[in-house]
């Protein structure tokens, strides 16, 4: 009986839905007008649409690439993909246009007597392998290094790790994700003991408030921002923009709150103070699922070579934590954060209200921070104290910048301390890696070596004598890049660069290897929400281009490790993924099998019994929870997350009389990072042809600088001349300037400081002191 009522209800529901859909279809203007508006556009009926993830950011939109006569001619959003539901951003729609840039690297180039000579690729690979082998023989294993990318595919990262750590036996492998996600990783590991967000993008459909911490999502994660705007319009969800600069996101947000650079640490603590002081703590959640801890303070900033730091966590009581927060009353914090007491209380109110669902979003503002690990911890504190975590619409969400920063850099582990599962420091993890790689366990060294910044310092010092970079452009993206470019130019180091286009990095190479672009190879990416995505090769690349994974395999073979890399040229992507999957078996990190990924637009790990896990640590959704409670933070041995006591400490370099301005650097919607791809796409170049420096109109007035005038930005490290931008894309606060870093002609990273977070080793690109001069 009850069953029939149930089915009748379902039937009525379905009927109602159907009639609503029919009504909507008759009213929807798009269908009627499509004909008139698109009459001049070829219909593209003969196109073969192939599925894959977008090449660019960490959102991981599903794309469909239209292929005609072996050429990619169109891109559209994949309506079946849960991430973007058919929508893309301007970069995504035009991505394939870079393939045909005239200066595409199509053949290997070897530097002979100062000029690059076109060389057959097999010969170039011979040279690279023999040089690498010879360097190891002469100077030891730790004299060779590889620097890869959060844009490397999973197979590319996996074979790089296997070659360096398993076969050669050195931990000299790091990647550009160190410049973008390392603080997020350190934050997750210190608080939860397990990397990557607990929630997923579906949180957007449930949350009442979105609080963005130093994060211009309208430009950097545009498709997610559009999903938020949709919820704002449909359900009245609110967006609160908490930032140091007024941006496009602030314009679209319901409220914009500005703070003085670096004081986010204090404001986060003040929010916790308010939550405790007003009795908004979710007591049963905190008692059952949280510990309190403190670490070392006055950690330093890592600006000197061979800087070392190791945190020492000590457990504390709730009372001690409460006493610590006395220094962070809203009144005290308002004085130096330039956030009003009212606004601090407003933020605390949102987090503290048990009836409001809140998601916090952040990306580079919190990660590129000399206290990046701390600020990640502090935002987790807010969510843990209120118990707003791991539930639909409630939780902290660390966004990634690169398409596979999660999938490759973090999960495969292309960092010096990482292995595909766990870290090199733990014997258990080394043994597992050695078993799957079929190498002697002793091969894998137990001590991490160089993180990104230190790796290039070691090149400059002459300690590294061979370096191979893949899928990245460090000679534009490193902080204080002037020193590192000079280091790479030195005779002491042999530089190999694999890339699709010539860049300032390939300019300092001894050998340039021509790489396949995105759809000219197959691969897998992993996006911000733990979604693993697969695509197959769609078109052939030009000339002798080769995918990066296969280049690594060819080198390994030439160095005599052929038996460790028994993959076939046609099937290596699939073979490598199947081998890699063994590392993550189990309910905590199980990866979806290839057949599922080929069929669907990605799957979220842990993938258990044919199902994605959308909210980790919540027993209702996550089968790995085993403590019988509602929540289980199984990353930590005792199943409890850690609330960290982390103080406010000043930035590595603050404005003073000689250098009175803060310099903040970042990105724009039109360009992807250093612009080597997007600047070669005509649509994007036309919309954003060059770099600029944003000034506050009052500061510009004081120095009589008008819009478009050339100004020179000078720091203790270098200078950069760019046109002023006043009241255009963004508006920095008084005493601050902002420069996007995509323009290799206006290299702002000559000016930035290479200070980093001592725990995560991620540099701070958002804060250093500069002066502004009229040219």
């Amino acid at each position, binding site marked *: 009986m009850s069953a029939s009522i149930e089915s009748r209800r379902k039937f009525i529901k379905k009927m109602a839905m159907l009639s609503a859909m029919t009504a909507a279809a008759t009213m929807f203007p798009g269908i009627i007008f499509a004909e008139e508006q698109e*009459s001049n556009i070829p219909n593209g009926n003969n196109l073969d649409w192939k599925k894959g993830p977008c090449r660019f950011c960490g959102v991981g939109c599903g794309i469909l690439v239209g292929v005609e006569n072996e050429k990619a001619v169109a891109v559209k959003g994949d309506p079946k993909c849960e991430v973007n539901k058919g929508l893309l951003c301007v970069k995504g*729609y035009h991505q394939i246009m870079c393939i045909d840039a005239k200066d595409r690297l199509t053949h290997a180039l070897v530097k002979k007597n100062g000029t690059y000579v076109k060389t057959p690729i097999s010969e170039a690979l011979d040279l690279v392998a023999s040089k690498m082998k010879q360097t190891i023989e002469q100077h030891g294993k730790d004299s060779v290094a590889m620097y890869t990318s959060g844009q490397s595919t999973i197979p590319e990262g996996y074979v790089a790790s296997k070659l360096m750590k398993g076969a050669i036996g050195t931990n000299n492998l790091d990647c550009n994700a160190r410049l973008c996600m390392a603080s997020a990783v350190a934050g997750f590991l210190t608080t939860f003991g397990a990397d990557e967000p607990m929630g997923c993008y579906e949180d957007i459909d449930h949350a009442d408030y979105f609080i963005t911490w130093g994060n211009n999502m309208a430009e950097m994660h545009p498709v997610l921002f559009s999903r938020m705007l949709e919820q704002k319009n449909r359900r009245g969800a609110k967006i609160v923009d908490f930032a140091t600069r007024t941006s496009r996101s602030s314009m679209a947000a319901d409220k914009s709150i500005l703070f003085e650079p670096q004081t986010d640490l204090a404001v986060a603590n003040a929010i916790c103070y308010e939550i405790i002081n007003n009795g908004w703590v979710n007591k049963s959640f905190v008692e059952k699922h949280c510990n309190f801890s403190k670490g070392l303070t006055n950690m330093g900033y890592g600006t000197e070579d061979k800087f070392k730091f190791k945190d020492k966590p000590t457990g504390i009581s709730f009372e001690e934590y409460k006493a610590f927060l006395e220094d962070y009353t809203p009144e005290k914090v308002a004085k130096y954060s330039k956030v009003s007491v009212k606004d601090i209380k407003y933020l605390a109110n949102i987090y503290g209200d048990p009836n409001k669902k809140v998601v916090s979003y952040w990306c580079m503002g919190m990660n590129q921070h000399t206290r990046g690990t701390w600020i990640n911890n502090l935002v987790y504190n807010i969510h843990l104290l209120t118990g707003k975590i791991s539930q639909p619409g409630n939780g902290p969400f660390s966004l990634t910048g690169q398409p596979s920063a999660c999938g490759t850099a973090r999960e495969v582990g292309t960092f010096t301390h990482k292995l595909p599962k766990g870290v090199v420091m733990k014997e258990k993890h080394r043994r597992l890696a050695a078993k799957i790689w079929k190498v002697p366990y002793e091969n894998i060294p137990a001590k991490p070596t160089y993180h990104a910044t230190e790796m290039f310092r070691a090149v400059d010092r002459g300690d590294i004598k061979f370096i191979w970079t893949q899928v990245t452009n460090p000679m534009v993206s490193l902080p204080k890049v002037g020193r590192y470019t000079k280091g790479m130019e030195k005779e002491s180091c042999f530089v190999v660069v694999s890339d699709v286009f010539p860049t300032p990095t390939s300019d300092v190479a001894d050998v340039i290897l021509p790489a396949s672009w995105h759809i000219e190879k197959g691969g897998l990416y992993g996006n911000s929400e733990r979604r693993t995505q697969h695509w197959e090769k769609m078109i052939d690349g030009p000339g002798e281009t080769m995918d990066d994974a296969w280049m690594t395999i060819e080198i390994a073979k030439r160095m005599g490790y052929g038996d460790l890399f028994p993959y076939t040229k046609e099937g290596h992507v699939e073979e490598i993924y199947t081998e890699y999957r063994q590392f993550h078996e189990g309910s905590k990190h199980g990866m979806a099998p290839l057949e599922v990924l080929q069929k669907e637009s990605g799957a979220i790990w842990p993938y258990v019994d044919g199902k994605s896990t959308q909210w980790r640590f919540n027993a209702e959704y996550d089968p790995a929870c085993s403590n019988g409670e509602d929540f289980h933070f199984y990353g930590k041995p005792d199943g409890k997350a850690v609330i960290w006591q982390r103080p406010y400490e000043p930035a590595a370099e603050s404005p003073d009389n000689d250098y009175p301005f803060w310099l903040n650097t970042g990105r724009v919607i039109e360009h992807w990072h250093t612009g080597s791809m997007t600047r070669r796409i005509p649509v994007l170049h036309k919309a954003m042809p060059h770099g600029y420096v944003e000034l506050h109109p009052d500061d510009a007035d004081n120095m009589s600088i008008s819009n478009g005038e050339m100004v020179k930005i000078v720091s203790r490290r270098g200078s950069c001349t760019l046109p002023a931008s006043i009241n255009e894309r963004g508006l920095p606060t008084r005493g601050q300037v902002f420069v996007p870093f995509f323009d290799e002609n206006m290299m702002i990273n000559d000016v930035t400081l290479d200070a980093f977070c001592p725990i995560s080793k991620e540099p701070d690109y958002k804060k250093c002191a500069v002066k502004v001069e009229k040219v």
Partner: protein
Amino acid sequence: MKRAGIISLFVILFIAFITVWNYSYYQGLEEAYIPTTYDSSSLIIPSEEGVFKRSKFALEYAKMPIDATHERSLATYYKNRAFPGAPPSIPHEIQQDGTIGENSCLKCHENGGFVDKYNAYSPVTPHPEMVNCRQCHVEQKTTGNFKENYFAKNNPPKVGVNNALITSPPMIPHQIQMRENCLSCHAGPSAPKEIRVTHPERVNCRQCHVPSTIEATDNGIFKRGN
């Protein structure tokens, strides 16, 4: 004694009244002075804020049925402008010639709606904050010319040819200064049918549509330093 007490009480009350009155009188004088300091720290980025200005109406636009008999076309849209990008002239009579526009124009042109008198939907202004409408928009009282004129009107940008690829979103082929608010012309019943957006609910227009007419010094094809 009793009388002295009552008198002194009234005296105190009187003095108190005088003091309070005096104090409030001078306070009142001071408050009458409102300092006119210019606060330029307003958080507005003109080119960015405009895009979102009408977003609260976006859902209604998406749901609105098409009124095919009263649609505007792009041809009539440009007919009303001296050249593409010029402010449109006022194609109807004005009742009060003495006003700058302001409330009278905005009554119909701020949010639009059907106007029985003209049997048409009123176009929506992208810049309702500028209230001196008739500074730029003037009537056309005659169709003739004072003297013949050879001014050649540029052809307006075409529709359907601004895509770089099939299926890629069209670029913005016109200048957007004072027209940052996309939805005012590209959505709603008064939007010319050829440029009426199929997805007004998307709001963040410039996520996908970027201008192709940026004014910048053309550096030519980029050449590497070495």
